[in-house]
């Protein structure tokens, strides 16, 4: 079953009051939520707080979870709003001094290390960063990204194109 299928079933179970579904949701999307929150906040502690807040809000949402059509986008949207609320409450900007990327299974690409890639990602604007993350690591469509961030499909696509060009320039990768 796809991630969205598993998540839809788990959200429906949660709506019926089955609290065990929380663990299923975490296993399916916890990593994406944490990575997204880390890219938004730039701080592992804040990112953990955001993920925790998402689960608290899930528990509070109750029966409204039954009709969610795009569960992954829905949960990432919750993380987006939780991160925004956290920034509002703490009144500070993200320093982004943490490693935002790790080496993948295939090893570092050419001469590029994960540290250098992280620094390049940190130089993107927050809006560009979140679009790149949602598109590349969460496999969301531009329509879903628009829903997560509360922007139009066209804005999401345009931001992604600009971010990708910027990233290629920063990393010295040819287009």
């Amino acid at each position, binding site marked *: 079953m796809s991630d969205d299928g598993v998540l839809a079933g788990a959200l429906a179970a949660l709506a019926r*009051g089955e609290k065990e579904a929380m663990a299923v949701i975490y296993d399916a999307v916890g990593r994406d939520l944490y990575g997204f929150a880390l890219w938004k906040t730039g701080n592992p502690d804040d990112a953990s707080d955001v993920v925790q807040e998402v689960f608290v809000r899930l528990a509070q949402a109750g*029966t409204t979870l039954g009709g969610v059509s795009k569960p992954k986008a829905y949960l990432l949207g919750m993380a987006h709003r939780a991160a925004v609320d956290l920034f509002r409450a703490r009144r500070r900007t993200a320093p982004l001094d943490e490693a935002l990327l790790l080496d*993948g299974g295939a090893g570092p690409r050419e001469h590029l290390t994960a540290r250098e890639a992280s620094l390049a990602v940190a130089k993107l604007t927050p809006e560009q960063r979140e679009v790149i993350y949602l598109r*590349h690591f969460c496999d969301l469509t531009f329509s879903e990204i628009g829903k997560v961030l509360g922007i139009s499909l066209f804005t999401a696509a345009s931001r992604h194109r600009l971010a990708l060009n910027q990233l290629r320039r920063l990393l010295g990768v040819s*287009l």
Partner: protein
Amino acid sequence: MTNKHPLDPFRPPEPPSELKARALRAAEGAPRAIKSVPPPQRAFGPWDWAWAASLLLLILAHTLLGAASPKHAPSERAARPVSMQDADLAALGITNQMMSAPPSRMRRDRIQGDPSEVAGL
């Protein structure tokens, strides 16, 4: 030229191992919202009966006393017959109704009435 994504070989960091337990624990303690809670029903108490009775009395009083008030009395002007002093006017065909009704209404009455009068207007 490459179409590969510049971030292809990389992946985002893993969440801390204790985060799952922490998130689930926090969710466990959160109060669960119940959708569409019906508003609490209040019993129809003595004060409600008193309000209903006073409202009923007010309506009743208005109905009974309203007709007797000067405001609702038939207009003296409309009921006034053609007096002896108006005999000359009556001879000229000027009725009491002409004196009390607005000209627009009189014109409409004439149009609907005698066509010869209309022609004379």
